[in-house]
């Protein structure tokens, strides 16, 4: 189920502006890869280009290759909608569908796949997904209530349940804890640890302790100055990045020395 991602010479544009330049990296299946770096360095942009969400913005485009187990996601004839069904995404701010109940939120992706499922199978899927997101015990008695009535941390776990309900190959997380309190953050981090048994996870975070706690590999993005494109400075084992990185810039960033 979990698949590997190969990125080669990827340039990402907003219109004519080159936002991220020449990224090459390999992400192994069933691992957690953290992307760190200062604000505006293009980590979120890079993350969004993995499931072709980048091109939703008018004028945004990508040059280069991203392969999912050898299949070029930007190849001719590849439907971005199909890509997004294989690669789930969790956003910075929890975004359950406010007009849907908790139950309907979880099965929203399944509904899109037009799979006719029996009620019992759907019930089972909802329970499995909510258990997978460590949310089942908190919401099992109010599945018909709107998802927007939950706390921020619960909403984010609901979004994770929604993303894993369609059993994607990869799970992308764009600063999933930055709007949450420390206890909810801990809950999500524990969840990430469990989820990596089944999924390939890529997480963007500003929190370096979080990157150190949850990830197996870490990629450091940096930007030389405003108006310049962001670049992948280096990528390695999380331990190596945080103890003896190859680049001086990485060491400065992870140890809190800048400039």
């Amino acid at each position, binding site marked *: 189920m979990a698949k590997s991602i190969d990125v080669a010479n990827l340039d990402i544009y907003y219109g004519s502006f080159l936002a991220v330049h020449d990224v090459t990296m390999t992400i192994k299946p069933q691992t957690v890869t953290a992307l760190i770096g200062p604000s505006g360095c293009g980590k979120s942009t890079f993350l969004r280009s993995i*499931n072709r969400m980048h091109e939703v913005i008018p004028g945004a485009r990508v040059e280069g290759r991203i392969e999912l187990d050898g299949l070029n996601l930007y190849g001719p004839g590849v439907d971005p909608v199909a*890509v*997004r*069904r294989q690669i789930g995404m969790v956003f910075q701010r929890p*975004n359950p*569908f406010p*007009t849907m109940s908790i139950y309907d939120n979880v099965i929203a992706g399944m509904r899109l796949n037009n799979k006719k499922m029996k009620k019992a199978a759907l019930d089972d899927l909802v329970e499995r997904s909510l258990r997978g997101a460590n949310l089942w015990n908190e919401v099992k008695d109010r599945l018909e209530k709107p998802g*927007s*009535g939950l706390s921020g941390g619960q909403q984010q776990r609901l*979004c994770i349940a929604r993303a894993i309900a369609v059993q994607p190959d990869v799970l992308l997380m764009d600063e999933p804890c930055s709007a949450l309190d420390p206890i909810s953050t801990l809950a999500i981090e524990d969840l990430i640890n469990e989820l990596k048994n089944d999924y390939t996870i890529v997480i963007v975070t500003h929190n370096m302790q979080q990157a150190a706690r949850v990830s197996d590999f870490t990629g450091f993005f940096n930007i030389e100055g405003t108006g310049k494109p962001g670049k992948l400075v280096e990528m390695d084992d999380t331990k190596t990045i945080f103890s003896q990185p190859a680049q001086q810039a990485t060491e400065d960033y992870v140890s809190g020395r800048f400039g």
Partner: protein
Amino acid sequence: MSTTTDLKAEQRAAKPVLQLGDRIFSGSAKGAGILILVVLAGVAIFLFSEAFPALVAPASEIRGGNGLVAYIWPLVFGTLLSAMIALAVATPLAVAVALFITHYAPRRVAQGLGYLVDLLAAVPSIVYGLWGFAVLAPASVGFSTWLNDYLGWIPLFAGPVSVTGRTILVASLVLAVMILPIVTAVAREVFLQTPKLHEEAALALGATRWEMIRMSVLPFGRSGIISGAMLGLGRALGETMAVATVLSVSGVVTFNLISSSNPSTIAADIALQFPESTGLAVNTLVTSGLVLFAITLGVNMLARYIINRRREFSGAN
């Protein structure tokens, strides 16, 4: 112990400190709110007092000679029928136009189109009436004949087909064009406000653009569509000149949309009859106005009820 109790009593008694500007603003806002109520109450009192003589008059003295209900009922029917048809035609069209402007059209096309739709609202209603009378009515005869030939078994299109085309169907279509801009404008505004977050949530799950619209834009815009439709319905119910110009009336109650005998509407009837009315006839017309007032009030309350019923799921929280 007693001192703290005293202190608390003192705090309760003390007035909150208010800046002068705050006081002026809250006063004028309160005044504006009260003014609305006063105007509304004034209108209601006028309607009731002027309608009263007609309400107590014997049936034979009312125009038509069969009493108030017999006079007003066909008008109520015509008002509701034409407004409902207009709404049924205009709302889906308005939602489609608004979706095209906000989610499908390239930015430049969208701006131009939005501007054009707004221009529709600036056309005076008498112009719509003349257009309906001189252009749409004659042009509709062929279409009505076709409807009658092939769908004549539906009571709506039973015929006989009006040769002038001045039917309630044409009047309703004119009304639909007239309410299109307001419904479109409201729908467009609320579609534009759909949080990017919700749209992206749907897209990231692998929704196509239409599925994204169905999952995030339409549910978010639901209450906006309803309020836009109700605004349009209000305009359609009260529209006077266009209907008075287009419709050839005969005071019947019929669902037949394409024949030459059509029910009039309350507003059009008042406009046509008022100049020649005196005494009790005026009171009768005011009574029909009171009924229109009540219908509009009812429509708006129903709309509020529909919007509030699903407030929990509205996305406002």
